[in-house]
């Protein structure tokens, strides 16, 4: 059966998916640019696995999933950042250990308490049907907070990302900004996980920034382009997955991949023209 766009938009689950998806995509893209440049690309991946572990525990103990997942993921984000900054295990290794352990714990807990149920399945691969009214409110609040902090601290974030030692030496408290970035990333990951799934959420963070960097040469252009692309990809992905009846998260990633390839080709031709 064919639906028109206005008919699609009259479904509550599609409205919710858009109201959650668009702001989360916007935040993920903004934060993603900094994370990629700071070489923390895998942090989103690590955090989502921790989120999965927390959800499994919450389900086993009959607690509200997000109430458990949000604090746990925030704590994990602080820990991962500290480990990446100053420890003998390097950041990569730390993230790999944390994410696989959290996933394993989640699966052990689930299988011990009666096998994978639909909720956990949807957290692994994402589902737009799982969104509640609370999620909608939370994602709008999150988006407002991220946008405000990002714009207010835009120049500082640039300076800290480009050259942490220089900003420290000239009196910018780099630790504060790193902490803000990881806190916001944790919130974005938990919210985004529901649509994109544990296994695919990190692409929402990494793809837009990397895609923009193929073509754009200034920081401002990269930030704006990745925000715009990310929103387009999620919106288009939602509609395509509705019509084609494909998994939403995976569809969004495929559209991101298409953008990446197109931008990559444009970037390639630009360099050889020079």
């Amino acid at each position, binding site marked *: 059966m064919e639906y028109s766009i206005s008919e699609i938009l009259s479904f509550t689950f599609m409205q919710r998916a858009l109201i959650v998806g668009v702001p989360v995509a916007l935040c993920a893209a903004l934060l993603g640019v900094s994370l990629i440049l700071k070489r923390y690309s895998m942090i989103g991946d690590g955090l989502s696995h921790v989120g999965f572990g927390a959800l499994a525990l919450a389900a086993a103990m009959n607690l509200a999933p997000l109430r458990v997942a949000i604090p746990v993921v925030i704590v994990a984000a602080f820990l991962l950042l500290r480990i990446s900054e100053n420890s003998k295990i390097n950041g990569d290794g730390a993230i790999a250990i944390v994410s696989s352990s959290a996933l394993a714990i989640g699966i052990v807990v689930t299988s011990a308490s009666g096998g994978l149920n639909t909720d956990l399945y949807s957290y692994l691969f994402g589902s737009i049907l799982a969104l509640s009214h609370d999620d909608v409110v939370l994602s709008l609040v999150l988006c407002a907070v991220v946008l405000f902090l990002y714009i207010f601290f835009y120049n500082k974030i640039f*300076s800290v990302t480009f050259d942490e030692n220089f900003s420290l*030496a000239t009196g*910018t408290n780099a630790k504060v900004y790193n902490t803000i970035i990881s806190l916001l990333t944790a919130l974005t990951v938990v919210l985004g996980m529901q649509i994109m799934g544990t296994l695919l959420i990190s692409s929402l963070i990494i793809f837009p920034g990397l895609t923009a960097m193929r073509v754009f*040469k200034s*920081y401002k252009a990269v930030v704006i382009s990745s925000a715009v692309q990310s929103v387009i990809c999620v919106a288009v992905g939602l509609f395509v997955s509705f019509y084609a009846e494909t998994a939403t998260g995976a569809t969004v990633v495929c559209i991101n991949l298409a953008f990446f390839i197109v931008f990559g080709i444009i970037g390639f031709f630009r360099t050889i023209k020079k």
Partner: protein
Amino acid sequence: MAILKCNDVTMSYEGVNVFEHLSFSLNKGDYLCILGENGSGKSTLMKGLLGLLKPTGGKIEYSDGLVQKEIGYLPQQSAVQRDFPASVYEVVLSGTLNSRGLKPFYGHKEKELANKNLERLSITHLKKKCYRELSGGQQQRVLLARALCATKSLLLLDEPVTGLDPLVSAEFYELIRDINKNDNITVIMVSHDVKESVENASHILHLENKTCYFGTVNDYLSSSISNQFIGSY
């Protein structure tokens, strides 16, 4: 009037003292080169001067109206910067951040300062170019312009000519000498290049085996430590 005083400073790295009891002072307009083998503590001292690392003993003091966060710093380049998408103007402008406090956006004054320093280092034509696509020498000029935006009185440079070819290095040294003389900015440079250092600097600080030598270039050249280090210069 001294602009910087190190009083009996001892610094350590991972629990081991790198150098001990270092004392020296610099006046406005001095040009100090810090020499020494790898591992002699040059970078540790630099971190101490920048306030990134606390001395385990003694005191580092700035005076004459200079606050620690008003130091212009030219760090060694990191891997992150080599593929960072940023325009030259964005990088230079970020040097003015320390004077902004909590105010989020750049004002007219900061933009003017950034433009002035672009002009000063003759890189105005690169303003809109992408930082990562510049040559090594151009990148150093951009970072120098950023450092000049952050300071009016003291410039710290950490091995600024590493990886540059001899011609570009010579140009860069001349630029530093010019900034030191004409803008009356005190310069502290960590360097490997003994020959250039004794030619340009007014003072030398030589770190070796936890001991330190500090003096004017002429005193340094007639000292025993320089003879061991550079042979017959």
